[in-house]
Structures are given as C-alpha cells and as structure tokens.
C-alpha cells in the first residue's frame, strides 16, 4: 500500500519534471524545473528500495539520508522563494530569504549536520529508524537530526500559508487560485508532518500519506500555475 503510494507520487513528480524539460531548455523559469527535478530525486531517495541501493554505493553510512535532507531543504527554499515572490508576499520573502530566513536556515543546517556526524550511522536504514547502534545517546542524536529535518519544510510552509490563502481568496483568474489552493493544501500537510511524531504507533503509516500530500501539493500546485500561464499566453486574457 505504502509502496504503491510512494511509487505513484514518484511517477507523478517525474512526469511533471520531464514535461517541463522542453520549457527549461528554452530558458523559461528554470528554477521551476529545478523544483520538479529535486522533488523527484528526493522522493526517489525516500523509497526504501532505491535508498538502500544508493546508500550501499555511498558506503552504507546513511549519507544518502543526509543528501535527502539537503535535497528537501533545497526544494523548499527554492519553491518558497519563488512562490513568495510570485504572490508578491514581501513579509514571506523576509522570513524565507531575509535575515531571519538565513539565520533559520543556518541553524537548521547545523542542527542537521552536527548530530549526523556525531551519531553512529553505520548500517543502511531508510528513515534511520532501524540503525544498528540503538544506544540512548545515538537515539537522541538521530531524533534531533530528524526534528531539524522536518522543521525547516514546516517553517517555509508556515511562511507561505498566509500568502497562498490570500491568493485563493482574491479575485484573480480561476487557475492561479486553484493552484494556490493546492499549494496551501500541500503547505498544511508539510506543517502537519512536523507533528507526525505524535501519531500513535498504529497510525504511524499516516505520515506517508501526509508527506505524499505535501509533495504532490507543491508539485501539482506549481504545475497548475504553469498550465495557467500556458493557457493565458495561448489565448488573450479575458477581462
């Protein structure tokens, strides 16, 4: 079930990314293609089968997980910047790439890299749930690492939520508003993901749905914006 969900998410993202290649080659908004491509790689690395292969090749020290973290940071930073700019949300921009945003990013990077290097991460394990070293210290370090990894996307999502909701409620044309609604849904899922630790164990599988919703919300929301632009340039805008 979860495998189907993950592979479907991957297929959707990969499809959107491939569809965006021609326009990226033409030089139209390459960063959007970057978001699609990075998301695709990030989903690939969160699927166990692929993760284990890549990590084995990297020395089975779970460096693939560290790479995955930075792929996610890259996606949300890039997407957050572009979305905030597109929606003309000055305040969101300030919280994402302004002094505050840069400080948060720096702290998150430190809180990601330091615990990872201090911890004993031997033995490939998707999501670092079943590392061989289960000593208290190691478990604590990994928990800090995981919390930092989930915090940053939630932070960016929280910065974007007001701007996306404002756009949904505005009187702009339909497609950007629907796109903004999908982005807002993805942002909500991204924020929820931070609290998925609190889910009781029997419901832990729900976090896969939440993370898929988050990624699909981002990718499909942006794809709708893209569709809107294509349609708007094809036929002259109606008033």
């Amino acid at each position, binding site marked *: 079930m979860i495998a189907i969900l993950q592979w479907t998410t991957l297929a959707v993202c990969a499809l959107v990314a491939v569809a965006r290649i021609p326009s990226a080659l033409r030089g*139209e*908004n390459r960063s*959007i293609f970057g978001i699609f491509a990075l998301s695709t790689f990030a989903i690939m690395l969160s699927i166990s089968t692929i993760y284990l292969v890549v990590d084995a090749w990297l020395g089975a020290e779970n460096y693939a997980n560290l790479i995955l973290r930075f792929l996610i940071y890259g996606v949300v930073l890039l997407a957050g910047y*572009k*979305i905030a*700019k*597109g*929606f*003309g949300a000055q305040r969101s921009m300030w919280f994402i790439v302004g002094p505050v945003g840069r400080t948060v990013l720096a702290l998150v990077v430190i809180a990601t890299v330091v615990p990872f290097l201090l911890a004993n991460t031997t033995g490939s394990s998707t999501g670092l749930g079943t590392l061989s070293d289960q000593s208290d210290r190691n478990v604590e370090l990994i928990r800090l690492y995981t919390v930092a990894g989930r915090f940053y996307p939630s932070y960016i999502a929280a910065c974007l939520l007001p701007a996306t909701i404002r*756009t949904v409620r*505005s*009187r*702009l*044309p339909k497609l*950007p508003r629907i*796109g903004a609604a999908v982005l807002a849904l993805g942002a909500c899922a991204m924020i929820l993901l931070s609290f998925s630790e609190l889910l009781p164990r029997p419901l832990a599988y729900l976090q896969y749905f939440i993370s898929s919703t988050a990624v699909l919300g981002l990718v499909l929301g*942006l794809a709708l*914006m*893209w569709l*809107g*632009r*294509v349609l*708007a*340039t094809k036929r002259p*805008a109606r*008033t």
Partner: protein
Amino acid sequence: MPLPAKAFQLWLHVVAPTASTADICRISGIKRTTLAQQLVRGKVAETTLVSISRALGRSPLEDLSSFDSYAGLAGQPQPPTAAELVSQIATMDLLRAVISRSSPAYGGYGDDGSSLTPALGPAPHATSVRNWVDAIDDGELRHRVSAATGVAPQNYSAQLTANRLSPELAVATARAAGVGFTGGLVATGLLTETEAGWAPEAKQAALDALSDGELTALAGERLQSLGRTLRRQEQEHEQTKKIWENLG
C-alpha cells in the same frame, strides 16, 4: 427561485401546443442539453422562459407573471422612477451628455438633449445592477432584502459587484424598496426596456430633467467608481502577471 419544471411544461403546452422540444430550442436559441438539464432538475431558469416567450412573439413580462412566484408582476406595472431610469444610462452616455451640454468651446452644443447628441444605449450597461440598487437605496435597503430573502449581505454585494442579480432577488429588492418590479428585471438584462413597458423616450426624458449640477455630480460619482474598478482590475492583472513570471 427558478420556475418549477411542472408549471413550466404546463405553460409551454398552453403557449406552443404543437411544438416539439427541438423546435422550441431551435427558435429560442437555447441548447437542448441546457433545457433538458433544467427540466430534469425540476427548476427552469427565468432566462429560458423569457427566451422562449420572446421567440414566440409573446410578452415575457406577462408570461413570467403567470407563474406563482412572479404573480406580483401581473397587471399594470408601476412605471420606473426617474432615478431608476437614469441609473440605466451607461456611464459613457452620461459623460457624453455632460460634454454635449457644455459650451461649444469645449465641443458641446450648450443645450439639453440636442438632436446632434447620439441616442442613449439600451439597458443593461456594465454596472447597471449596482447603479439600479444605489438609485433606490435609502441606506437600509440591503438589510431589508437580506432579512426578507435570507441571502447574506456579502453574497448580495458580491452579486452587485459582478453586475448580476437573480430575478428572484431583483424582484425582492424592488419590493423592499417599494418601486416597480420592472426596474430590476431590466437592470439585470432579463427583460428589455420595451418588454418591461418602459416608454421609448423615458430614459432620455429623465436625463434631460437633470440639472447641470445633478448630472455632473452623478457622472463624477460614476467616473470615480469606474476608476476604482479599473484600478482593481489593473492590480489583479499585475498580480497575475507576477505569478506567471515567477511560477509559470
């Protein structure tokens, strides 16, 4: 409330006993699927009735009043007030009247209703619904309509901004304001002025009756609100462009 399908079909049977649905759709220009859908749902739009009535050469106003929910329309309709008539003159026609009354030095004729001034355009115009409601509003009208119909004030305002008003609400508004029922139906474009029984020269006469001061103040108000609308549209256009540039 749209017309009940049963009553509509009875009416259709009376006014066009031999015509098939296909014939009706062909002469009235209604899509067959649209009519079929309305009949299946049990609610027929007033515009459907008006189109068919018009196509059959009948009086849409009388036909509409043969339905229970529009029974109040029957009989001799109360004529529109002067303010209502002026509200149905397009903003550009008002401005043209201002210029036409000005002295020849400014391109006018210095008189009222000169024969050289182009005729007024037919109602409805781009903001006719809001202008009509403004013309009959005593300040409490929206609350009374809202209380009488149960439609939330913000939904009512949204319809006015979109230059729309359901026929049911248009009638309810007229009732709440104590004016004739035809004003709203003309302002929303359901009926033409002639179909509503308005005299052909009524609008022009109401315009000519305005003093220069009244006319200029009114044109100024209209121009200001037009400016606001245009500015908002420009802003929205800018926002959309920004979204396309960054996310498209």
